[in-house]
């Protein structure tokens, strides 16, 4: 180790790996992963979310899974809880859609209305 910058760089990289264990605020994305969700293809959605969050270096986003959300026919479903905002539910997701949700909703703060359960029900 020859400089403080070097240490700071390692720290920054490493922090992302342990960040999950800290008390945190921020956005929570929940993927429905009961039998229905998994068979409808929730796992590629989850992997896509993880990859996208990692690629964009988003540190305050937590991705977790849950059981059956209830509307099995609309699976894969993901729910986004952004601090201070109402919950947004996206339905019939796939990997491509998941990436768009990260880009538009999580990063830019614009809900992707066409994927939401509200749009589907209309």
């Amino acid at each position, binding site marked *: *180790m020859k400089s403080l910058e070097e240490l700071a760089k390692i720290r920054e990289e490493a922090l992302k790996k*342990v960040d999950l*264990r800290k008390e945190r605020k921020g956005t929570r994305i*929940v993927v429905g992963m009961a039998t229905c969700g998994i068979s409808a293809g929730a796992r590629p959605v989850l*992997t896509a979310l993880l990859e996208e969050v990692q690629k964009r270096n988003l540190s305050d986003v937590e991705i977790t899974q849950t059981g059956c959300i209830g509307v099995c026919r609309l699976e894969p479903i993901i729910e986004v809880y952004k601090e201070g905002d109402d919950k947004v539910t996206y339905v019939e997701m796939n990997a491509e859609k998941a990436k768009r949700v990260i880009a538009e909703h999580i990063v830019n703060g614009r809900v992707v209305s066409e994927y939401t359960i509200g749009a589907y029900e209309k």
Partner: protein
Amino acid sequence: MELYRSHVLICGGTGCTSSGSVKILEKFEQELEKHDLTKEVKLVKTGCFGLCEAGPIVIVYPEGAFYSQIKVEDVEKITEEHLLKGRIVKELLYKEAVEGDQVKSVNEVGFYKKQQRVALRNCGVINPENIDEYIAMDGYRALGKVLTEMTPEEVIDTIKKSGLRGRGGGGFPTGLKWEFTYRAKGDQKYVACNADEGDPGAFMDRSVLEGDPHAVIEAMAIAGYAVGANQGYVYVRAEYPIAVKRLQIAIEQAKKYGLLGKDIFGTGFDFDLEVRLGAGAFVCGEETALLQSIEGKRGMPRPRPPFPANKGLWDKPTLLNNVETYANIPQIILKGADWFAGIGTEKSKGTKVFALGGKINNTGLLEIPMGTTLREVIFEIGGGIPNGKKFKAVQTGGPSGGCITAEHLDTPIDYDNLIALGSMMGSGGMIVMDEDNCMVDIARFFLDFTVDESCGKCTPCREGTKRMLEILEKITEGKGEPADLEKLENLAYTIKSASLCGLGQTAPNPVLSTLQYFRDEYEAHVYDKKCPAGACQSLLQYFITEACKGCTLCAKACPVGCISGETKKLHSIDQDACIKCGACMEKCPFNAIIKK
């Protein structure tokens, strides 16, 4: 870099390792493989979580779900339910972590709520065998700050202002020790770390080394810079294999990153660290004996002065601090002396780690701000005494300390308060005793330990403790005479004032403090030949009460055949033949047999 959605932390401390956490880790590996979760879920082996009573412990983040007493068979369920489907397995959670339908995170559990973790802050949070995780938690930033922004005088000043005192037991102001070593003249100086933890029931230092070895390494490098030393030694007992291994891994990693070695952070400061294994002699925890042992000589104390700060290893100025003391240093540098001095009481700053054991529900490791009361530690964090028994006393300071009784439970814990009560802070062992513990027997136990561990160099300790032990054995066997109590006290004071080192000077403390608070128990043994707590075998008699139904089970269980009586009639014990093994009492289905 890989990002995971979930982290599974498995305790790899000595406690949980011995209750099978390694097998649990292996099973998790298999299960994750089976469910194809290896890219989503990360397994981390950490240091001690503290609540050893509930081990093996597994914590799953981000939920902070606190699973306790996990068996290999449970792993499949946790993987399928929690990790795969996201449903926390409530029945496997620590009992306090479930309240109605609510699942509480690990930090909200009673055992952790009152704690404040400074020395243990990374224990159970990071993987101790991965230097990157330590760096992520601000690791080595303090060393960087010290080397690039501070002069040695400023470092010493900060430590002095923080009010940190030695955590090994003596409570000597750490900053002063650093200053003495800094001012001592010498072409070569050393820093050393005392990890020769020997008190029965104490495992604070072990847990720090197992859970966060880099904190000690970083602090020693800081100390080296402050006092002008470029070589350090960690003296750790060989009975701590996991701690030794992790420390060695940590040193290797630090060397690879250039955080130990030549020209650290390009500042021209060199520092190297070596591990020295102790063979487990208690006296080697005494500083002069420890330094002798590092040099490869027989571990025996020598008179002070000269103090190690002037004449230590190979007669060179040497700074010697305890593991826990060092573990506080990086935090003090980063957060400032005022932050540290803001925690604790007027003369005892910061936090203290305790190993809680004995008759207590939550056996384990905890860290509290100085000034927390004994009652909070024992009844809130410790969860009280098992089986509804009554609290009798708590022994602090191990074989050098003393007992504190129920009337002093509301005393705030700090160095001076404990000494005023006739005990001491010690390194942090805390043994809780209930009504079934005989205080004479406890004193005998500790003295038995010091007799074994006395190095034999000075007569008061070598001969005196042995004579004291003989008297105590006499008393517990019911052969005590009235003059014995006075003799005990005389011996105790002589040994205290005439012994060469701390071991002898403090060895009579358990006797003196039990004599002070429980003299009636000693007198009951000597005059009435009775043990009020019912612990001293020779003073006990077993009796069969009217509750006896004459089932004959006790007579069948008795190995010497001293129980007689007809079927369905009251039985009796022949007291002369009885060997007091207690087999009858265990067998009796009606609780008709009592001892007194």
